[in-house]
Each structure stands twice: as C-alpha cells, then as structure tokens.
C-alpha cells in the first residue's frame, strides 16, 4: 500500500504511545535503575556500575537455567513446527467439518495456563491420571515428580499439546490462501505430492511460518506458569526455566539488583534471537 507522508498521524498513535510508555517504558527504566545500584534500604542505594551484570553472567545456576531454556525452546520448535504443518495438511479444506476442526483445535489455546498445568498434573499422575496410569500398566516406570527425564518428557508433551494447534491454525490459514490454479497446474505437470508440498505449499506458507516460529520461540522462552504448576521446577531444578529462576530471585529472595540485571540480559536475548530468526527467514526475499 502506498503511504502518504503526514506527521499529524502522530495524534492517532499518541494514545498507544502513552499507554505503552506507561506500562513498558517506566517499568523498564525502573529495572535499568535497579540493575546499576546496590539497594539496602529506602535511602541507602549505591551505584555499582556493571557489577550485577558481571555477576549474573558468571552465575552458574543462571547459566544452567539458560542452557535448559535453550534446549527446551529448540525442542519445542523442532517438534511443533513440522507437526503443525502436518496437521494443517490433514485438515478438511472447507465446510462445516473444517469449522468444527478449527474450534476443537483452538480449545487448548484458550485454557488458562495454570489450568493447562493442572490438567497435565492430573493426567500424568500414576494413581489418578489416565496417562500416567496407562504408562505404568504397560510396564514403563513413569513418575514425573521423581524422575527428571519423565519430568522433561511431560513438560515437553504438555507444551506440544498446548501450542501445536497454534502452528496448525496458522499453517491452515496459509494453505487456504493458495489459489486453486496452482494445484491444477501441478496436476497437469503430474507433480508428485512431495513436489506439490515442496514447491507450492511450503513457499506459500513462509509468511505464516515466520509468525509461528517467532511466537513459539518467544512464548516458549518466557514459559513460566505451566511447568511451575506441573513440576514446580523439579525434581531438583531439572525443569526450572529462566522465568521461574527470575521470579524466585526477584519476588522470593528480593534480590533486586541481581534480578534487574538478569531481567535485562533475558530481555535482550529474546530480542536478539527473535531478530535473528526474522532476518534469517526473510533474508532470501531481500533482493526481490
């Protein structure tokens, strides 16, 4: 769309600007302020420069938490993106059945995150949960509260259950936007199903896949409530991800300076990786 230069348009974005400045800029400045000070009391704060940042970057438990977070987000993307594309390809192309499919797929997305945790907490239990009981009955020793591997498996499975529908719905809308003529041309050329997918469907899915990868990366990197309810970060700290570490530090231990420095590093990582994803996926379009 061609856009008209008009600086009075600022009046239209002013409400958003004020609102977001209030709810993002002021808190962010507070965080920056804390991150360079050591605060003992209301009138006893000392400027410490980059000390907190240095400490945070060297802190081993934070590094371990970051490592787990990276593994988790990578696994989430590697499982959910292909699975979501596959499901979108299976979905009916129109009519009442398609509407029904869409609504049913959307259900997990509309459940409050703590309830998602509760659902899996119940479902995976060895005594009262269908899933945990089933695994134990067929001879698999499964206990997500005691075994770190089982806990990881359950948290991952929960996330796949929770968010794959989002990827599927995004891809579904991308697929619906492909004109029928493309498929007819492929049929005339006797293209194989794989060729249709590789050269017609996949390229057309790119714009929605950018959104899917970005949303899934950001949200999995910020995950807090679901694993907190399901495993509480345990056993030990095997499923403690960055948000939980940060929340414990800021609210639990009230370790403000360190938590603030950590917050900024955390935010920067999310921004940087999102930018990298965005640039990497859209790079080939640059020259066009």
């Amino acid at each position, binding site marked *: 769309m061609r856009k008209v230069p008009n600086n009075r348009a600022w009046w239209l974005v002013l409400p958003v600007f004020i*609102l977001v400045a209030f709810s993002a800029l002021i808190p962010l400045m507070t965080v920056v302020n804390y991150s360079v000070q050591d605060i003992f009391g209301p009138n006893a704060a000392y400027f410490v420069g980059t000390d907190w940042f240095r400490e945070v970057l060297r802190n081993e438990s934070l590094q371990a938490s970051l490592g787990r977070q990276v593994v988790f987000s990578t696994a989430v993307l590697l499982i959910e993106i292909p699975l979501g594309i596959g499901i979108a390809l299976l979905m009916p192309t129109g009519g009442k059945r398609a509407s029904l499919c869409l609504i049913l797929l959307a*259900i997990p997305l509309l*459940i409050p995150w703590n309830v998602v945790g509760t659902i899996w907490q119940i479902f995976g239990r060895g005594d009262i949960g269908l899933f945990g009981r089933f695994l134990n009955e067929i001879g698999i020793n499964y206990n997500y509260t005691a075994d770190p591997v089982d806990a990881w498996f359950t948290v991952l499975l929960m996330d796949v259950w929770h968010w794959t529908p989002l990827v599927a719905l995004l891809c579904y809308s991308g697929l619906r936007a492909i004109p029928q003529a493309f498929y007819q041309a492929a049929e005339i050329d006797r293209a194989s199903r794989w060729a249709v997918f590789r050269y017609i469907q996949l390229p057309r899915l790119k714009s929605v896949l950018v959104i899917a990868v970005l949303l899934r990366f950001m949200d999995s990197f910020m995950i807090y409530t679901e694993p907190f309810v399901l495993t509480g970060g345990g056993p030990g700290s095997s499923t403690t991800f960055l948000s939980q570490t940060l929340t414990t530090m800021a609210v639990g231990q009230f370790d403000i300076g360190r938590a603030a420095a950590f917050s900024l590093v955390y935010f920067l990582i999310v921004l940087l990786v999102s930018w990298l994803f965005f640039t990497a996926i859209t790079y080939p379009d640059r020259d066009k």
Partner: protein
Amino acid sequence: MTHSKRRGFGITFYILLLLLPIYWLLNMSFKTNQEILSSLTLWPQNFTFHNYAVIFTDPSWYDGYINSMIYVSINVVITLLVSLPAAYAFSRYKFVGDKHLFFWLLSNRMAPPAVFLLPFFQLYSSIGLFDTHIAVALAHCLFNVPLAVWILEGFISGVPREYDEMAYIDGYSFPRFFIKIFIPMIRSGIGVSAFFAFMFSWVELLLARTLTSVDAQPIGAIMTRTVGASGIDWGVLAAAGVLTIIPGLLVVWFVRNHVATGFALGRV
C-alpha cells in the same frame, strides 16, 4: 477417495488425542473425591454435581471468575480503543519515526512478563491501583496492544485507500468516516483482535496474580486454595478448571469463521 479417508482418520485421531486430557478433567469434575482416589474409572460411577455446587455457592470461589471477567473485559475495551486509530495511522501514513515506533511496540510482545513483575508491583502500588481490576487490565495491555495493532494493521491494509478518499469527497469528516464507514468494513478484524486480546488476558496468570491480593484476585490464583492440609481437593480443582475453559469456548464460537485468518494475524 482412500487418500482423503486416511486424512480424515489422521485428523480425527489427532483431535481425539488432543481432547483426551480435557475429557479426563471433565470426567474427574463429576466424581466424588473418594471415587477419584480409590479407583481409576473411565466415566463417573457415582455422578455428582457436588464439586460445581461448592464453586457456585461460595462467593470467594465465584468472585474469582467475576474478577477475571471484569479485568479481561476492561482490557479488551482499552486495547481496541487505542489500537484502532494507531493501526490506521501505521497502515495509511508515513510519519517521523513510524517504523521505529512499530518495532518498539512489537518488542514489548517479546518482553518476558517475569521481567516486569517487580516494577509493575511497585508502579501500581505507588499510584494506588494495586489490587484493582484496572491495574491488571493495564498491565495486560503490555502484550495485547502491540498484538492488536499488528493484527489490525494487517486487516486495515487490506482495505483500499480509495474508500477513504471517496468518503472525503463526499464530505465526511475524519471521525465520522472512521466510525460510520471504516469500522463496519473491518469488523472481522476487530472481532479477531478482540478475540486475541481476550485470549491472552484470560490465560495469563503471573501478572494478574502479582498485582492483586483480595478484591481483584483472578480465578487462577484462587484455584491454588484446593491444596489444603488434608491434601488436594481434586474434584473441586477439576470443576474449577472445567469452568475456566467455558468462556474461551463461547468466544471462539463467535469468531469461528474468521479464526483461521485471525491466527495468521490478518496477513495471509
């Protein structure tokens, strides 16, 4: 034919797997605690509404749903009111700093809520909004407004400029054109944005729980009460969980025809 049958089978199988954990929650919500703990039954043997009765008769329970509904509604209204003009401006005009502003807005969607926990708590406490619905609604604007601006910008860019120019020639003032002509034209976009604002505000708990204590406490925070000295009240917990799913189902029903485009954020 066999191919499409196999597809139908595949998607049905997936949806059944998807619904199984939810069925288990529903199943448990109609059982007595004694039945839940004594044996694994695939459907309730002693069907009971007791767990739901506990929630519907106790104000400290159902107030949680009312609180959540109130702050979610306020959030949706604020989000739409500020996002609509902004999305229009981003879609139609070039102005100083427009790209920077747009990316700055989006970057807030990437901010982990945990980062803002402490500053939000202090900010809202200092201006006397702690434990009010409006505080949670404003806090949720952090991620809902950028998303709404993004979605609406996509939908608005799908409406040709010529409509705006024609309305000008016909003598419409900008506010009148915007309300009378433009908003009806992008109503599916507005519906979808409202749906997303509802969804992300309804499912969020970390900020909502931190900014409230009694008067505006969300249902998610109240649900932790089921963990008592005598163990967990599984039946009531399950019933409370089932009741949190229903508002989402109602809302998705209204936007079902636009939900696919909506999930692509109006950008397909």
